[in-house]
C-alpha cells in the first residue's frame, strides 16, 4: 500500500492543496513560507491524532473572518444552522489485492474494483450551536466588565469567537473520520457536489488510521553542532545509545554480558568507596537537619543502556578494524557526523515501526525536514542517493509493508540527484492578507508533458540552479550579465536583495525553453535579453554564405516565424540596419513575438509583459535594448545597442572611452566622431575575437560602482520586478497572522 496523494484544506496557508506523492521518495521544495513544512505538520497532526496541538492559528486565515462572523450574531447563526469551518486531510491510498482485508472500512462497496481508496480526517466542531451557546454564556458572564465609553478599548475575554476558541478549541472541536469513494471525486480529487462521505463509527476511525499509516518526522537538525551547548545538542554516542537502549530489551537474556556488568559493578563500588570515603565521613559530621543518622553511600548502578549513554565513545576506525587507529566521535567532521546521526535516527524510527507487534501500520511515511543542514554538497548527494537503500524493508515483510519518504529541502543538491520526477513545488498564490495561500505542483506532470524536459533537467544539474526555492527568476543572456547583475541590483533596486532571486544564465535562444517551467512554477520572471539584430538573408543568396553568418547559437533552426512570414537569418548587424531582424528566439516566439527590429524598438511596453492567466500564474517581463539617448562628442542621438556590452558602452560612453576604463576593453583607440560611428566601432570591437567578455565584466566589477550607470533596459526590468514582488507579498507570515488577529480582534 502506498499513499497516492493527499489534500489538505484550511490548514494554515494550505487553503486547499493537493499533494501527490511518489511511491518511493518525494521532495517538497518551494520558496520560504510556501507551506512545505505546514504540509508535513498537517500529516503529523492528523495522522497521529494530535488534537491538543491544534490552535486557532492552524486555521487558514480565510476562516477567521468566517468564525467571527458566525460568532458576532450567534443567535442568527444558530437559527440558520451555520457551521464553523473545518480543517481536513483527505488521504488517498493505492492498495493491492492482498491489502483488502486491512482496509475494510474504506472499501466503498463489494462490487468495487478500483485500487484507490480514501480516508478523510476532519477537525470539526462537535456542535456549532453548542459552541455558540457556550460562547454567548461566556460573553454574558463578563458583560458587566465591559468599560463604558467609546474610548475605552479594553474588552474582557472573550472579545470574539476566535478569542473564545483560542482557549477552548480542543473542547469544542473533534476529529471525525470518513471513508471516501474515489468515484465521487474528479480527476484532481475534488469532491463532487451532492456527495456525502460516509462517517465512520467513532470507535473505528482512530484504530483504522493507526493500522494503515504511521507518520514519523525527522526534524531539521539545526542544533547539532560540535559544541554541546543546546538541549538538542547530542553527540553521536548518545544517539546510538538510544538505539541501543531500544534494542536492548530483546537481548535481556544475554547472561554473559550481564555477569560481566555485575563483576564490574562490584569492583567499581569498592573503588568509589575508597575514593569518596573520607569526604563522605566529613560530610557526615555536619549532620543533616531532621535526619538523625545520616549515612551516605555512593554506589554505581550499572545498567547496559546507561553505560552506553555515558561511558561509551564512538570511535571512527581509520583502517576498518576494531583495534586499529581510531578517533573519538568528537574528533570527526561535523558533516560526516551529521550524516551518520541522521541515518541512525532514521533506522531507529523505522525499527520502532517494524518492532510493533500488534497492528503494525501497513505504511510508514517518514518526513525528513531539511536534511541538508550541516551537510556539504557531496554528503547531501550521498544521503539522497542512498537513503532508499538504507530504508529498504527486507525479508517477508517486504511483501506487506512499505515506506514512503517525503523530504523538505532548500538544497539544490538534493534535487539534482533525483531529477524532476519527485519534486513537489509549493507555490504561494494570492495577494498578501487573508487571501494568500499555497498550492502544490507536481513536477512529474510537467516532466511528462514538456518536450524540453531533458534539456532542462540536464541544465539544472549542470548549473545547480536554485529556481525551485526562489521568489523570482531573472533569466540573463550570458556570463557577463550574471556577473554584473548583483552589482546592478545594488545600484538600481536595493530592495530586490531582500527577495530570493534565482539568476539563470541561459541566452536568448534558451530562455524560451524555460518558458514552460517558469509558467509552471508560477514565479515572476524577468528575462533580460538582447536585440541580436541580424540582416535578413535573401532567398537568392547562395548557401555558401552561411559561413559568414554569425550564428549566436549553433543548433536552432535558421528560420523564425512571425505572422506566417518566414525569415532567414543573415549576418549580425547594427540594430539601425535597414530591415534588420532579430535572431533571438525569445523575442520572436515568446514575448513580444516580433521579428523586425524596427517593430521591436517601437514596441509598446504592455506587449512585453505576460500577465497571469487561469492556467499560468507567473508574470513575465522581457526586457531588451531600446533606443536611448546617447551623448557623445557633443552629439545627442537616440540609438539602441545590439548586446549588453554594446549598450553598456553606449550608455556609459564617456566613462568607457576614458583611459581610466581602459581595462574593460571597450576604449576605441581612435576617438569616434559621431554617436553612430561609436556604435559601429563598438559593435565591431565586441564582435572581434580579441574582446574578452569575462575581463569586461570583471573590469566593470572592479571599478567604482559610482562611475557607471546601469543600462536603462536592465534598470527598467529590475524596477518592474521590484514592484511586482511588492505586490506578491510584502509581509511575512507571522506578521500577517498578528495583523489578522488584531484586525479580527478589534
Amino acid at each position, binding site marked *: 500500500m502506498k499513499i497516492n496523494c493527499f489534500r489538505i484544506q484550511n490548514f494554515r496557508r494550505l487553503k486547499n492543496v493537493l499533494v501527490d506523492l511518489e511511491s518511493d521518495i518525494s521532495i517538497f521544495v518551494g520558496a520560504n513560507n510556501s507551506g512545505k513544512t505546514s504540509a508535513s505538520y498537517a500529516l503529523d497532526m492528523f495522522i497521529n491524532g494530535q488534537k491538543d496541538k491544534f490552535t486557532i492559528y492552524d486555521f487558514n486565515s480565510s476562516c477567521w473572518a468566517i468564525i467571527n462572523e458566525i460568532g458576532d450574531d450567534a443567535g442568527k447563526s444558530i437559527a440558520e444552522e451555520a457551521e464553523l469551518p473545518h480543517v481536513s486531510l483527505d488521504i488517498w491510498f493505492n492498495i493491492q489485492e492482498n491489502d483488502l482485508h486491512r482496509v475494510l472500512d474504506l472499501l466503498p*462497496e*463489494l462490487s468495487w474494483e478500483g485500487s484507490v481508496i480514501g480516508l478523510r480526517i476532519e477537525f470539526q466542531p462537535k456542535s456549532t450551536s453548542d459552541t455558540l451557546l457556550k460562547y454567548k454564556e461566556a460573553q454574558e458572564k463578563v458583560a458587566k466588565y465591559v468599560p463604558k465609553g467609546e474610548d475605552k478599548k479594553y474588552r474582557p475575554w472573550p472579545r470574539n469567537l476566535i478569542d473564545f476558541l483560542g482557549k477552548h478549541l480542543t473542547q469544542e472541536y473533534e476529529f471525525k473520520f470518513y471513508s471516501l469513494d474515489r468515484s465521487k471525486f474528479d480527476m484532481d480529487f475534488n469532491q463532487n457536489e451532492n456527495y456525502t462521505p*460516509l*462517517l465512520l463509527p467513532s470507535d473505528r476511525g482512530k484504530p483504522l488510521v493507526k493500522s494503515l499509516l504511521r507518520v514519523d518526522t525527522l526534524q531539521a537538525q539545526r542544533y547539532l553542532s560540535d559544541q554541546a551547548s543546546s538541549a538538542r545538542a547530542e553527540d553521536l554516542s548518545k544517539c546510538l545509545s538510544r538505539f541501543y537502549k531500544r534494542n536492548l530489551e530483546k537481548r535481556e537474556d544475554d547472561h554473559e554480558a550481564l555477569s560481566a556488568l555485575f563483576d564490574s559493578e562490584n569492583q567499581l563500588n569498592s573503588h568509589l568507596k575508597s575514593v569518596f570515603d573520607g569526604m563522605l565521613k566529613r560530610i557526615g559530621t555536619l549532620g543533616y537537619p531532621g535526619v538523625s543518622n545520616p549515612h551516605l553511600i555512593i554506589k554505581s548502578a550499572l545498567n547496559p543502556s546507561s553505560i552506553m549513554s555515558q561511558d561509551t565513545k564512538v570511535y571512527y576506525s581509520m583502517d576498518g578494524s576494531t583495534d586499529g587507529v581510531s578517533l573519538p566521535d568528537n574528533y570527526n567532521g561535523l558533516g560526516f557526523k551529521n550524516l551518520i546521526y541522521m541515518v541512525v535516527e532514521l533506522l531507529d524510527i523505522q525499527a520502532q515501526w517494524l518492532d510493533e507487534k*500488534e497492528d*503494525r501500520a501497513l505504511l510508514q511515511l517518514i518526513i525528513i525536514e531539511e536534511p541538508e543542514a550541516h551537510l556539504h554538497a557531496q554528503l547531501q548527494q550521498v544521503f539522497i542517493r542512498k537513503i532508499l537503500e538504507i530504508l529498504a524493508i527486507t525479508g517477508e515483510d517486504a511483501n*506487506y509493508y512499505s515506506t514512503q519518504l517525503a523530504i523538505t529541502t532548500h538544497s539544490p543538491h538534493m534535487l539534482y540527484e533525483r531529477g524532476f520526477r519527485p519534486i513537489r513545488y509549493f507555490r504561494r498564490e494570492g495577494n498578501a492578507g487573508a487571501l494568500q495561500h499555497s498550492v502544490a505542483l507536481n513536477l512529474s506532470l510537467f516532466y511528462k508533458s514538456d518536450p524540453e524536459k531533458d534539456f532542462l533537467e540536464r541544465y539544472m544539474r549542470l548549473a545547480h540552479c536554485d529556481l525551485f526555492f526562489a521568489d523570482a527568476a531573472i533569466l540573463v543572456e550570458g556570463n557577463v550579465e550574471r556577473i554584473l547583475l548583483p552589482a546592478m541590483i545594488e545600484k538600481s533596486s536595493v530592495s530586490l536583495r531582500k527577495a530570493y532571486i534565482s539568476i539563470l544564465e541561459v541566452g536568448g535562444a534558451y530562455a524560451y525553453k524555460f518558458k514552460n517551467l517558469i509558467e509552471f512554477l508560477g514565479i515572476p520572471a524577468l528575462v533580460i535579453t538582447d536585440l541580436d539584430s541580424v540582416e535578413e538573408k535573401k532567398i537568392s543568396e547562395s548557401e555558401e554564405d552561411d559561413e559568414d553568418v554569425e550564428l549566436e547559437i549553433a543548433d536552432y533552426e535558421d528560420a523564425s516565424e512571425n505572422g506566417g512570414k518566414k525569415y532567414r537569418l543573415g549576418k549580425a548587424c547594427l540594430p539601425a540596419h535597414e530591415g534588420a531582424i532579430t535572431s533571438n528566439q525569445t523575442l520572436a516566439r515568446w514575448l513580444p513575438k516580433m521579428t523586425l527590429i524596427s517593430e521591436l524598438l517601437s514596441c509598446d511596453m504592455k506587449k512585453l509583459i505576460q500577465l497571469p492567466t487561469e492556467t499560468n500564474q507567473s508574470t513575465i517581463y522581457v526586457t531588451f535594448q531600446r533606443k536611448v539617448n546617447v551623448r557623445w562628442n557633443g552629439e545627442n542621438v537616440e540609438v539602441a545597442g545590439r548586446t549588453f556590452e554594446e549598450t553598456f558602452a553606449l550608455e556609459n560612453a564617456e566613462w568607457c572611452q576614458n583611459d581610466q576604463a581602459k581595462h574593460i576593453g571597450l576604449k576605441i583607440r581612435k576617438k569616434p566622431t559621431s554617436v553612430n560611428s561609436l556604435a559601429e566601432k563598438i559593435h565591431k570591437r565586441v564582435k572581434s575575437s580579441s574582446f574578452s567578455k569575462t575581463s569586461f565584466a570583471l573590469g566593470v566589477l572592479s571599478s567604482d560602482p559610482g562611475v557607471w550607470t546601469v543600462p536603462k533596459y536592465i534598470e527598467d526590468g529590475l524596477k518592474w520586478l521590484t514592484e511586482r514582488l511588492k505586490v506578491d507579498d510584502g509581509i511575512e507570515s507571522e506578521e500577517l497572522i498578528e495583523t489578522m488577529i488584531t484586525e479580527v480582534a478589534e
Partner: protein
Amino acid sequence: MTKRINSPDTEADIMLRKCLDRTPRTSFVMIAGAGSGKTTSLVKALSHLVSTKSNELRRKGQQVACITYTEIAAKEIRNDVANSPLVHVSTIHSFLWTIGSPFQKDIKKWVIQRIAEKCLEIQEKINKPRTRTRDRLVLELDRLKSQLGIVESLHYFNYGTGSNYAKGILGHDDIIKLVTSLIEEHKMLKAIISQKYPYIFVDESQDTFPNIVSSLKLVDHIFGKDFCLGFFGDPMQKIFPTGIGEIAIENSWERITKPENFRCSQRVLKTVNAIRKPADGLEQTRGRFEIIEGKEFPVEGSSQIFILPINDFRTSNVKRVQQWSTHKFDDDSWLLDDKIKVLVVVHRMAAKRLGFPNLYSAMNDNSPSSFKDGLLDGTAWPLKPFMNFVLPLINLHSSNLNFEVLNILRAQSPKLTKNILKGDDLRISLAELKKGVDRLAEMMRSDSTATVLDVLKIIQEYEMTSLDERLLDHLNETNLVETDEDDDENLKATEISSMQNYFACPANEFLGYKKYCDNESPFATQQGIKGAEFDKVITILDDDEGTNNLFSYDKYFGISSLSDVDKKNIAEGKDNVISRTRRLFYVSCSRARKDLIVIYFTSNVPEALRLISETGIFQKESIFLEKDLASIIIADNL
C-alpha cells in the same frame, strides 16, 4: 475449572495439529461426542496456531476466527487463549456483522430489496380474493412503503436484537440472511474473509445454520489453498431444528473423530452409547475417572429408569423418586435442590412444580415472542413492575426493614418525587403509601386470591411506582388499535390476549416465578443445557407436558404409532421425530457425571417396560416401576 489448554493430548488433538500444519491449508470436521472435550480440542488448536503462526498472522494482519454458539462460550474461549489478539472469538452474528458492516452501501441495497420483497408478499396476499385481513394488510403495506422512504435517507445500519429498518437496525435473522447473501454474491467478500481469517473454526457446528455453512464452504471452494475451515461438533447433539446437523465432508477435507468421553461415569456412558448406537454408531470410550489416594479410578456411577403412569401425581411422583434415591444410594443430596438437576422437556413442568403455571401459560402460550423470551429471565416488560418493585418491596416488608421499604418508595414513587414535600403533606403521602404497601403485602400472601390486575390497580391507585406506558395502555384499554412498531401483523392481537390472561393470573404466582428466575430451582430444559454437566441428573420424559410435536418419547420408544408425516420423513431420510427425540434423549442423559435417573411418564407402562428392556439402554435391574417406589415408602414408614 482447570485450564482446558493444560489437559493432556488425545489422539484427535494430535491429528488436528498435523492437519493444521499442512500446506496447502486443509479444512476439517471434528466429530466429538458428549463430554469428549470438544471445546478443549478447539482451544488447543487455537493455541497451536497462535504459537506456530503468530509471526505470519501478525505480518499479514490476520486473525484466527472462532465462532461460538453463545456469548458465554465465546468469553470462556477468549479466556482460554489468554485474550490473544490473534484470535477473534465471537458468536456467529457478531462475526458476520464484523465482516459485513463496513459495506453499508451494499447493506442499504439489501434492506431496500428486502422491504420490496415483503411488500410484494403482502400485495399478493391482498390480491387473493378471500383475504379476510385485507384492511390490516393494506395498512401494513403503507407502513412498509413509508419505511422504504426513510431507509433511502439512512447512511448507517446497525445490529440490534430486532429489526427496525426505519431506525437502521437489523435483527439477528436479517444479519444472517444479509451477510450470507453478500458472501454468496461477491467474490471480493470471499477474498476478504480468506485474507482476514485464514482459519475459521466453528464450534457446535451441528447447530449452525445451513446457509452459513454453505457460504463458508464457498470461501473454501475458491480460496481453499490459503484457507482452513474447521467444524467442531456432534451431529448427535443437534437440538435446534434450524441447525445443519452433520457437516458434509468436501474433497480433500479431513475427518477427525474424537471418541473419548471424559464426563460420564461407566454406567451412564453405557446408557449414552446405547442411545446413540442406532444413529451413527459412535461408541464413546474411557469415561470419567476420579483420583483416590493419588490413583485414578473409573467412576462406576449409576443409570436407572422409572416407568410411571401418566396421572395427576406426576409431580409428587418425581418427589418420591428423589426420596427413593436417598434410600437407594444412602445419599440425602437427591432431595437437595442445589445438588441435582432436573431436566424437563419444557419449562411448563418447572412452572407447575414451582407454582406459577398460569403465569407461565399466559406469557408463553400463543404470546408474542418477546414475552416468551423475556419470561425465561424475567425481562419481559409486563413482568417488570413485579420484578423491580412488588417483589423487592414485599420481601423487605416481610422482614420489617421499613427504612429500605421507604428507600424503594422514595426512588420510585411519583408521589414522593413529584415536588419537594413539606411537613404535613409528606406525612399524608407517607401514610397513604404505607396503606398501599400493606395492601400489596396482603395480596401477595400465598393464600391470597388477588390477581395481577388487582395488584397493578393498587399500584396505580396509590401511585407507588410509575408504570410502563405499554402497561398503562392495557390497563386503561387505550391505544390498543394502532399497529406501528412491529412487523408481525397479528402481534397486537396476540399481545392483547396474552395481557388479558396475564392480568387474570394469581399475583402470588410471582413468588415461585422469582425462584425460577433467580436459578434457585433445580430445573433446566433438556434443550437448554448444551455443554453443561451435573453430578446427579433426573431426566423427565413426558410427552404430555410438551406442547410441540417435534419430540415424542412415546413414538421414540414405540408406544404410540408414527403419523403418516413421520413415516414419510423417515422413508425420505429426513430428520424425523424419532431421530430428534433420540438426540434430545442423548443430550439430556449425557449431562450426568455420575448418576442418572430417567423418569418416563407413559400411558402404557407394561408395553413401555417391555420395549425399553429390549433396547438395552438400561440394565434390566435398573428399570423400576411405581411399585418400587411404594416399597420404599413402606420401608420408610416402618
